[in-house]
């Protein structure tokens, strides 16, 4: 067991018959087109696009986990040196958004600048625009907010208990609603309980990931300025140029033809720059002041206000035979999405499609919840939807190996999925290579494998009975939710109501429980003043504005 050396090799002999390696350019270590600029520091960050008269925007943020906003007094701040304008939620044309509304998935649930209440420490309620960043910082301190502190909840399982503080008015029970139907995403494949009862061993585990920061070299932000012909140019660090452009178009109620977005070439993202709202805020600042505006997080905001990789909690129960075959696997998962949905709802569907990991297990069951808590909203990060559950699965596999007294590499190869196997999401596996990866890693580390497992292959041993759907799958209606209807995204059979041809369909609104929701809410010009009632009403959302939508499918589904 000696410490090895750095090295890199292509194992061309494996799967050689499936490749044509006789290519001109593909497979070459060609030098990157942009590498000289990167290593000499000449590649521009978005923050390098400075303009004469550039103004700086900084946010006034909640010091509380959960509080009602009684009053925002900007009078003193407005008199501070260098202050040009103070922006609040009233200035935002469409002050309620969720990124995946562009896919017709989920309710608009997050203000750009909150007006009625805040649901996490650091939530913005106003933005100061000043001549210098220092002046903006000083003026932020001078904005007086009267808060009414509310009870908060930080633990996912506590948040799902009856009587827990309600975090997000769009989902008052603190769980995202899937398909307009359930408070969690289900996976049902075979008969879990029967298989567990017949297993030789039952192995249980609980796994927890904590939130993680994407830590890009350049913090999130955008710089906006006026272009000719009523257009706005926006230099941004976004990872998804047209997502950001679509969001700005929606939030600012501007035709996308008036927006010119220019993305970066360095600075890193790692998932934290997919769902930013820096662009609409910077452009709004330019619209309100007539001058170029930069809105950029500092490192503290990036770490504590910027959406991290969310925490996940997983419970796994395996039924295992004495010979190491896993015959049943149950998951209960909780994604801590923080105060607002962002992309967690999407990640859960991705995670559920990934279960039970790269193994062929004939009975699989999962309930996965997207839970609202009073913390910074979570978002994407490298491996989104998968990293947390893979940690849980592979730590659990070690426990299973110990329980049955097997070498952990052999346990993986024994249970590995192979070409032709049926997966729990009911599609046939192909192009598998888990067995070969296990063999190569074991060989390099000097882990001895039995001759059987050394000879195993992803191309053989699969299919046949392993490729059949289970004879019986136990289903249930647990977690049924009333009063929601689904958007078209990920929805079997499409949205329930056909769209009117003249107008885009508004998202269905959740009703104040328990009454059913109206089919559509009329547009309301501005958000109501703070409500005295204990249960905050969601701000009424305007009918879907002129923003473009990417939902190719909802487009042609509804024709």
């Amino acid at each position, binding site marked *: 067991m000696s410490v090895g050396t750095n090295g890199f090799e292509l194992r061309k002999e494996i799967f050689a018959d499936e490749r044509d390696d006789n290519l001109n350019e593909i497979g070459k270590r060609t030098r*990157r087109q942009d590498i000289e600029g990167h290593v000499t520091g000449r590649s521009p960050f978005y923050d390098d696009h400075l303009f004469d008269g550039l103004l700086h925007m900084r946010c006034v943020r909640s010091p509380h986990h959960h509080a009602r906003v009684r009053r925002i007094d900007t009078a003193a701040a407005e008199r501070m040196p260098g202050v040009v304008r103070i922006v609040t939620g009233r200035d935002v044309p469409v002050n309620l958004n969720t990124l995946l509304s562009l896919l017709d998935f989920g309710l608009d649930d997050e203000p750009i600048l909150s007006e009625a209440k805040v649901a996490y420490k650091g939530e913005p309620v106003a933005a100061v625009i000043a001549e210098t960043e220092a002046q903006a910082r000083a003026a932020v301190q001078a904005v007086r907010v009267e808060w009414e502190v509310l009870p908060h909840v930080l633990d996912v399982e506590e948040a799902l208990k009856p009587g827990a503080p309600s975090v997000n008015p769009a989902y008052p029970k603190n769980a995202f609603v899937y398909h307009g139907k359930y408070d969690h995403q289900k996976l049902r494949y075979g008969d879990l309980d029967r298989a567990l009862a017949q297993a030789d061993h039952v192995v249980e585990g609980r796994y*927890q990931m904590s939130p993680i920061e994407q830590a890009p070299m350049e913090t999130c932000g955008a710089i906006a300025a006026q272009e000719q012909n009523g257009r706005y140019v926006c230099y941004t660090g976004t990872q998804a140029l047209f997502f950001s452009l679509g969001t700005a178009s929606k939030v600012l109620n501007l035709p996308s033809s008036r927006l010119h977005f*220019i993305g970066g070439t360095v600075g890193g993202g790692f998932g934290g720059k997919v769902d930013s709202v820096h662009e609409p805020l910077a452009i709004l600042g330019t619209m309100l002041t007539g001058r170029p505006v930069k809105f950029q997080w500092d490192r503290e905001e990036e770490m504590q206000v910027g959406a991290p990789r969310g*925490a996940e909690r997983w419970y796994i129960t395996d039924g295992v035979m004495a010979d190491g075959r896993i015959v049943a696997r149950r998951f209960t998962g909780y994604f801590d999405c923080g105060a607002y949905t962002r992309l967690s709802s999407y990640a859960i569907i991705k995670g559920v*499609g990934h279960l039970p*990991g790269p193994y062929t297990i004939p009975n699989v069951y999962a309930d996965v919840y997207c839970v609202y808590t009073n913390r910074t909203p979570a978002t994407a990060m490298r491996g989104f939807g998968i990293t947390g559950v893979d940690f849980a699965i592979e730590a659990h596999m070690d426990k299973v190996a110990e329980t049955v007294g097997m070498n952990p590499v052999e346990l993986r190869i024994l249970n590995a*999925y192979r070409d032709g196997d049926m997966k729990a999401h009911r599609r046939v596996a192909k192009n598998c290579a888990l067995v070969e990866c296990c063999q190569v*890693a074991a060989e390099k580390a000097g882990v001895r494998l039995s001759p059987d497992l050394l000879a195993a292959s992803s191309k053989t041993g699969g299919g046949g009975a392993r490729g059949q759907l289970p004879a019986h799958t136990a289903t249930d209606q647990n977690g049924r939710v009333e009063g929601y209807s689904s958007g078209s995204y990920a*929805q079997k059979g499409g949205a329930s109501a056909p769209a009117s041809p003249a107008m885009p369909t508004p998202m269905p609104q959740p009703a104040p429980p328990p009454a059913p929701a109206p089919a559509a809410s009329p547009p309301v010009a501005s958000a109501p003043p703070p409500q005295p009632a204990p249960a905050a009403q969601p701000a009424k959302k305007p009918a879907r504005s002129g923003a473009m939508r990417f939902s190719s499918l909802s487009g042609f589904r509804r024709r």
Partner: protein
Amino acid sequence: MTVHKGRGFAAINYPIGMNLGGDPSQALVHSNPDGKFTVALSAIDLGQGMKSVTRQIAAETLGVPIADVYVDTADSDTGPHDMGSFASRGTHRMGNAVIQASLEARAVMLEAAAEELEVDAGDLVTDGQGNIHVRGAPSRSITTMAAAQAAQFKQGRTIAGRGIFLIPLSDVDPDTGEMSPVTTFAHAALVVEVTVDDETGEVEVVDIQSAYEVGRALNPGLVEQQLRGGAWMGMSHAAWETTEPYYPARDHGPVDFNHYAMPGPGDLPTHHISVLERPAEDGPYGGKGPGEMCANPMLPAVVNAVYDAVGVRIDELPVTPEKVLRGIRANGGAKPRQAL
């Protein structure tokens, strides 16, 4: 005080591309008069190498030298729509769009060359060095530059191509979770070696022996960078970093890199990487995205190695010295296993 060695194993697969599909990417390719090609995209490359990979894919498909291709991207006025850089979709989706656009442009280039050479376009091949010639007769040739000039100044043709790649959006069954999440998966397995100090609780990752299956290493240098950096990030997730060290309590949240713990150059283990290539049937030249999956196996492998070293199972990440010491104390001392 004893420093214990331990090894841990983990294996994973990873879905490539936006879950459920419905995420188009477009590309436009055109030739300048001198036979140089511009690939216009709106994809975002914040350092991961997207521009270089699409450039290589375009050069391969067009059949021209890499130096004759330039990728212009990240401008919403000039680049056609792309969904974005996330979900390991860049290489897979955009690579396919670039292939389609390049094939269309290549066909026009060969027609222009055929007219000049007075042969059938179907008999022409490219040598990847800037020449187009009749198959089996290299002397009957024309340079790509001459073909491009003839097309534009003599024949009135545009050497240009459009490409789009879209996997139609899948449904999800609310009751069973039936869905078509993605079309291909990447794979990985690795053995890590750690040392655990039973007095301080400190964990050091000292070696990684990995195998990553990436479909096709379109540029082995870029693949290596992704895998090396990703494994580093995975070990950081396992044993260093969090924004909420006492989750779910929100106290003691770090606000800068002095307090947000991540491994530095002195903490790097040796890492020997083996790359396997089982081409994906719908991947560009078989390629899958290596960028995300490379971090994932490190997290469980490190906790499994800590257990192997001192007999403490840490099921809550990150593995901090505090958790290791509490575990050792609860067990009545380190219980080395060294079973792997």
